[in-house]
């Protein structure tokens, strides 16, 4: 097996891209990453996307994007794992390169969620859950996370306001990320007064629906000198799974998919949670950030908020999190999100983000992308070279 690295990064701003379609977003990010890497072609393209069929009436994304990116004849396929589609696509690229089957693979995560009305997008996003037994019972995707949050508050005797630490941090960092959707800070008071979406989850617990695309070029580490872009080591990119429906889990407050994925990633990289300098968490909802911190082994069960308060998750804290705004601040173009996370973590390791959000002395970054309510989890660990 060969070691792998990232040599090219690309991303579009996360926005409501009324003027752009799926392919234009994807091609922009992919070609930017190729330019960054200094390549004019790749051996294959993995497209991370969840809802092109439901919201753009467009499947068969692989060949479409390869064609429009000017990569005539190159192999391309779509990878789908709900909100984990982006990192799942990276995982496929890593497999292809480390196995020796390919030398350079372009990964592009792309999503366009604003083509239809909100209610329709809400229904489409809910397809990440069990269609026969969750979604047709009226559960929305926010609703699933609300059930988890309600139980979390109950079991650990917490107040809803305790969760404000995560979105407040995310927004604070997003101010300095030009590609972020929400470049404004929020306060604890705003959080407390925010409108309920699915009780107890409010608007400021929820990452916004958005459009965007991000891309990386994955190559064999032994070949990094061939490329222009500054390389970042991929120490691990590992997948863990769990039941699709949260009711089928013995303890819904313990994300086994996260645990499995993180443990594999620590094992493969030879690292432990203590070695992680920055963490890009999948903060689609505040509750998921908490559950992810616990099941990833950063703190014990039920202790995520205390941990975050004590460790200080800000840029100058001991455990900086979601340094470019996370899903909450940057936005959550679902199938692209996992790639954005890795691009942002790689930028941190390259030292190329805006100075207010540049973490000093960081060598190891971890990004965790969660599909559905934890049924597919991809944990990626990157290292500065």
């Amino acid at each position: 097996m060969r070691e792998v690295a990232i040599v090219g990064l690309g991303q579009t701003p996360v926005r409501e891209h009324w003027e752009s379609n799926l392919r234009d977003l994807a091609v922009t990010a992919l070609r930017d990453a190729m330019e960054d890497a200094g390549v004019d072609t790749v051996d294959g393209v993995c497209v991370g996307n969840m809802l092109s069929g439901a919201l753009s009436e467009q499947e068969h994304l692989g060949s479409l994007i390869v064609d429009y990116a000017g990569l005539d004849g190159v192999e391309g396929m779509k990878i789908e794992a709900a909100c984990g589609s982006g990192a799942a696509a990276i995982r496929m690229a890593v497999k292809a390169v480390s196995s020796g089957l390919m030398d350079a693979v372009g990964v592009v995560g792309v999503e366009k969620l604003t083509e239809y009305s909100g209610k329709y997008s809400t229904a489409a996003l809910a397809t990440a859950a069990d269609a026969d037994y969750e979604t047709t019972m009226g559960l929305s995707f926010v609703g699933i996370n609300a059930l988890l949050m309600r139980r979390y508050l109950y079991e650990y005797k917490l107040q809803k306001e305790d969760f404000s630490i995560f979105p407040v941090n995310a927004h604070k960092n997003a101010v300095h990320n030009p590609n972020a959707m929400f470049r404004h800070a929020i306060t604890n008071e705003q959080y407390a007064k925010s409108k309920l979406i699915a009780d107890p989850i409010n608007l400021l617990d929820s990452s916004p629906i958005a459009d965007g695309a991000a891309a990386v070029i994955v190559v064999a580490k032994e070949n990094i000198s061939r490329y222009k872009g500054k390389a970042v080591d991929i120490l691990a990119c590992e997948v863990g799974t769990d039941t699709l429906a949260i009711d089928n889990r013995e303890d819904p407050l313990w994300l086994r998919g996260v645990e499995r994925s993180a443990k594999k990633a620590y094992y493969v990289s030879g690292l432990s949670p203590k070695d992680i300098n920055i963490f890009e968490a999948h903060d689609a909802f505040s509750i998921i950030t908490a559950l992810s911190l616990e099941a990833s082994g950063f703190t014990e069960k039920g202790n995520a908020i205390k941990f975050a308060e004590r460790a200080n998750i800000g840029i100058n804290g001991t455990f900086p999190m979601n340094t470019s705004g996370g899903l909450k601040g940057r936005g959550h173009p679902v199938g692209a999100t996992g790639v954005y996370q890795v691009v942002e973590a790689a930028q941190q390791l390259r030292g190329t983000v805006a100075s207010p959000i540049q973490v000093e002395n960081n060598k190891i970054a971890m990004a965790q992308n969660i599909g559905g309510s934890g049924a597919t989890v991809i944990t990626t660990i990157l290292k500065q070279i």
Partner: protein
Amino acid sequence: MDIPRYWRLKNQRYRLQGKKCLDCGNLSFPPRLVCRKCKSRNCEPYEFKGMGTLYSYTTIFQAPDRFDQMAPYMVGLIDLEEGVRITAQLTDVLPDDVQIGMKLEMVIRQIYEDGPKGPILYGYKFRPVLKF
């Protein structure tokens, strides 16, 4: 109109029919072809009684398209007496009267109408146990 699904799932939606593993006795809902515990495929249909307690709940204010006419409404995770947890809407109860741990019983209600021309989907919901 997902009529075949409507028809196919009627024993699940009307009668909480899951599966019982004949090798290890493990119960499952939804029904599974492979037992989660012992991986046996030797399973038979099993009907749950429909009595349970509330594990968690939420009020959905922004509903998916086909549930828009019903919103806001409540959804819960219910621990059935037989030891299986399921997801269902809560009905005939006001949000202020709902508590984790409360006793619930299954009733059959409209889940949604598939527009004014389509079929009406019926299935299980849960309400506070009617004392008698």
